[in-house]
């Protein structure tokens, strides 16, 4: 045995080793390594703040611990990163096998129904990179997340917000509170390249979203909180494509402007105080529009009054009608009970609160 060779891989097929080496050199894995470095740094930065009241809820603590392995992911994991986002979405590639024909038909029907509502062409399919999956409909991958994001984009278009972002000649800044694995920012940035997209989330989730977005947009200019002094986070923001701010530090930075604040399915899980903090912050930053896809309150969440009523204090809420069923359901499901379903709300900033 030659000196220096790892005994654990002695005798392994050289082609396999070569593939691993190639993956290690891939852009996605290199992005992941950068994200991991930043996330570890953010976690250590935020340790004290978490002890002083910014700790995740019990629910989220449990959730975050399930994908702790992502802090030491192999190139093979990153190559199939989308398969691992099930930790956040519950969706797995096997839910979209081509043999599930009736389910595929339901997806195709829902997609067709949404296309009828889409007057300006805002459809963006699931990207095939990093293990993208879904039913192959007309050569494009479609899963429940893709349809959800499509609904959101249509709602933003009909709420007269997206057009402004798509045709923007001056740079816009979009702030998403809780971007999950980065699917929506990918779609939004694809449609509206002239925006700086700011994501506020648990740092651990950047392992998914930042890695995914940096792989999807290899040329994108990215900044993480802490890479520069906090007050300089948004210095030269027009030159940046993505900015990642951990939840516990969002109040520590102040962008020059915010044009649109987005929240999908997480206000409903927060406490009244948390939702109000975010909405008040958006209002204080002179953010013109706030978009929310939430139920008024999750039925298990006893610490939240009502998302819409909190929004209404700072924004004039405008509910955009969409399909008779929520994004989680297919068209043949029973329509949502009044007041129970997810609502697409576009809020306009109030002059007087």
């Amino acid at each position, binding site marked *: 045995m030659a000196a220096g060779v790892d005994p654990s891989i002695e005798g392994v097929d050289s082609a396999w080793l070569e593939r691993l080496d190639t993956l290690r050199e891939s852009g996605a894995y290199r992005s992941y390594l950068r994200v991991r470095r930043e996330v570890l740094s953010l976690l250590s930065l935020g340790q004290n703040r978490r002890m002083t009241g910014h700790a995740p809820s019990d629910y989220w603590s449990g959730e975050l611990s399930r994908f702790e392995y992502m802090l030491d992911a192999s190139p093979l994991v990153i190559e199939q990163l989308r398969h691992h986002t099930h930790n956040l979405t519950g969706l797995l590639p096997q839910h979209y096998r081509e043999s599930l024909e009736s389910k595929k038909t339901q997806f195709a029907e829902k997609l067709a129904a949404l296309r009828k509502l889409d007057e300006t062409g805002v459809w963006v399919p699931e990207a095939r990179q990093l293990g993208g999956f879904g039913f192959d409909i007309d050569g494009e991958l479609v899963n429940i997340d893709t349809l959800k994001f499509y609904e959101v984009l249509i709602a933003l278009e009909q709420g007269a917000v997206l*057009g402004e972002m798509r045709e923007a000649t001056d740079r816009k800044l979009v702030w998403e509170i809780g971007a999950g694995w980065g699917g929506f920012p990918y779609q939004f940035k694809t449609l509206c390249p002239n925006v700086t997209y700011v994501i506020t989330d648990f740092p651990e989730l950047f392992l998914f979203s930042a890695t995914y977005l940096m792989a999807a947009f290899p040329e994108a200019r990215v900044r993480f909180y802490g890479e520069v002094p906090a007050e300089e986070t948004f210095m030269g923001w027009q030159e940046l494509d993505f900015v990642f701010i951990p939840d516990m530090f969002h109040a520590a930075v102040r962008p020059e402007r915010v044009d649109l604040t987005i929240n999908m399915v997480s206000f409903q899980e927060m406490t009244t105080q948390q939702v109000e903090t975010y909405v008040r912050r958006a209002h204080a930053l002179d953010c013109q529009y706030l978009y929310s896809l939430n139920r008024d309150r999750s039925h298990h969440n006893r610490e939240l009054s009502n998302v819409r009523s909190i929004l209404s204090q700072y924004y004039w809420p405008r509910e955009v009608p969409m399909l008779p069923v929520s994004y989680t359901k297919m068209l043949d499901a029973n329509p949502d009970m009044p007041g129970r379903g997810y609502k697409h709300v576009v809020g306009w900033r109030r*002059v007087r609160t």
Partner: protein
Amino acid sequence: MSTARVVIGAPLYNHADELGEAVESLLLQTHQDFRLVCVDDQSTDGTEEVVRDYSVLDSRITYTKNPRRLGMIGNWRRAFELALEAEPDAEYFAWASDHDVWHPRWLETLVRVLDERPEVVLAYPRNWRIGPDGLMTDKRPWEFDTTGVENRRDRFRRTMRHMSAGNMIYALGRADAIRRAGIFRHVLVPDRLLLMELSLEGQFHQVSEMLWFRRWYGPIFSLGRQRRAFFPDGRPLYAYLPWWIGHAASLTWTLGVRAERSPEIGRVTGARLGARYLWLAGFLHARQQLKQVRIDILERAVFLKPLYIRARGTWRGIERRRADTAKRWRRSFGSSEKRRKLLQRVRDGAKKRVKRIVFPVGRAMLQGIRALPLMRSVVVPWLAREEIDQVPSGPEVFAMRKTIKLAAQGDAPIVVGPWLSEVGFEVLYWIPFLAWAVEEFEIPPERLIVVSRGGAHVWYRDIAAHHADIFDMMTVKQFRKRNEARWADGGNQKQMAPAAFDEYIVKLVQERRGLEDVNVLHPSVMYRLLRYYWYEKGAISLLNKHTVYRPLPAVETEEVARVLPSEYVAVRFYFRPSFPDTPENRALVGRVIRSLARRAPVVLLNTGLSLDDHEDFHPDTGMGIHSIEHLMTPSRNLAVQSAVIAGARMFVGTYGGLSYLGPFYGVPAIALFSNEAELVATHVDVSRRLSRRLEAPLVTLDVREVAVLQMLFDTLDLTPATGAEAVDSAQPKTEHPS
């Protein structure tokens, strides 16, 4: 000092609950240069407090309360007047309701439209309806626009039929145009009348974005409600007239009698507009009323409902059957070409039937008019002088001129052709027609790209600077196949309309030359016009007025001269209906060629190529008879034949096609036929006129007149006297001595 370019007048009345959101949405406009003038018509809720709170925050808001209730019309007028008093130099004005919501870019977008388009007087966005709770309803947004409609009457008619007055009245408009249009007149449904009058001022433009959210409280419109809201001091009698009669009367009074819009709209036009409004609005109103009557009857007389349902079912059955028939019809006539042809037949049939009905009536009327003394003594003789016989082609002349004018507009290259039919028509009509068109419409040759085949471009050199040969783009076989398919589809060779093959060739030319946009001058323009003459429906003047007959440009003869005798007779015989393939004709052609060859070298123009529907006659070549088949290639056979004819002492051949070329090159020609019934008299006539005009004889002869032929040949003074000598002199130059 006030300098705002935009002023918004907000007539307010008892909407305090929604007013805050409405005012805020206006204050958040990205276009900040405006003033908001709120006029409260004695609201009894908290309207005043809401506005005063905001006016403290923003100095652009002013608040005025009417000293007494004016009603809706009075309040809207006052909002306009106070707004323009506050901002006398404001260019644009809009009414804002006290309960709707505007997108922050509403004003910015509409101001941009009015700034950029001086012809637009009113600009508005698409809009959503929102419920009292702010929920956007799923009703699709309305659309109406008169952008680009320059004709005032067209705008008036379209606005009448399709406007959405309740939405459009909240548009941003030019303040002076609104003032000229009378602001809000004291009639029922005054928004409709204002918009009708504004349509006379200029165009309406709808931007495609959703920039206005109109709060919708359900269908609350009623004339009774309007009478109460508009006339708080008592309703005038005219308020009980149907609203559209009131509008028509108002239009007639203001435009026709008082001539308020003179000189743009004179009294007569104004009165006509009033009448037009009465008719159009009355018709639409009657239709609506009938619909309402039906609903009312069915609501009251319930026993009629089953009958109605049955009748409706029967009607739908008829409709369904009609749809099924249409479907079957589509199946039977699957190809679009078949459908097109059938439709054409149906259309032609319908036209004929209409003509059969209309013409006798028209003729009787004309006869009546002609019987008038003035007509008989002055007008009819004048018309006769103006060649009344051209009347049938009048519309076609107009259409032709319009088509060429359109093609000549702009700077885009013009593709002339493609010419796909007979050589005879090309030489005798198409080229002279083009020569006329180029002169008449002053089209520079640099813009023209002639598309023909077989090197025919040599005929167009003085017309067009560019050419494309079809045989450079496809093989002879491909051309024949597709061209024959075109004949089969069209019924004959004539290019009466652009076919798919024509379009295909134009595309090829575009691709080859890398041209994105081209205009096309298709032979159908000429075919459709001159058919009146060919079929003897139009006088010779139709042809004379639209053609220029002049010699064809000189053709390069050097190359062919090298292989030909110095003097020769060009011969081209082929068989066609007017000269069929019979033993007698074959024998005659043989005799003619041999006889000619005894006097002078004969050059046969046979191509050896199967390019068209003409079958060449192949005599045995012998002493003094030359063949040039070796020079013929698909892409230059016509150029070679032209060169040979141009250099010949005389041309002899079958009547038609190449025989017309002789006079164009100043070469005498004899054209033979044997079946006169197959000749088109007008073509023969043109050929004779052509020969006279170009001073080169073109003799058309019936083969039965052999004696005449003989006499003709006897009188020819050709040198050298024998074919043998001529051949000898040509011998060193020819590659294929006969």
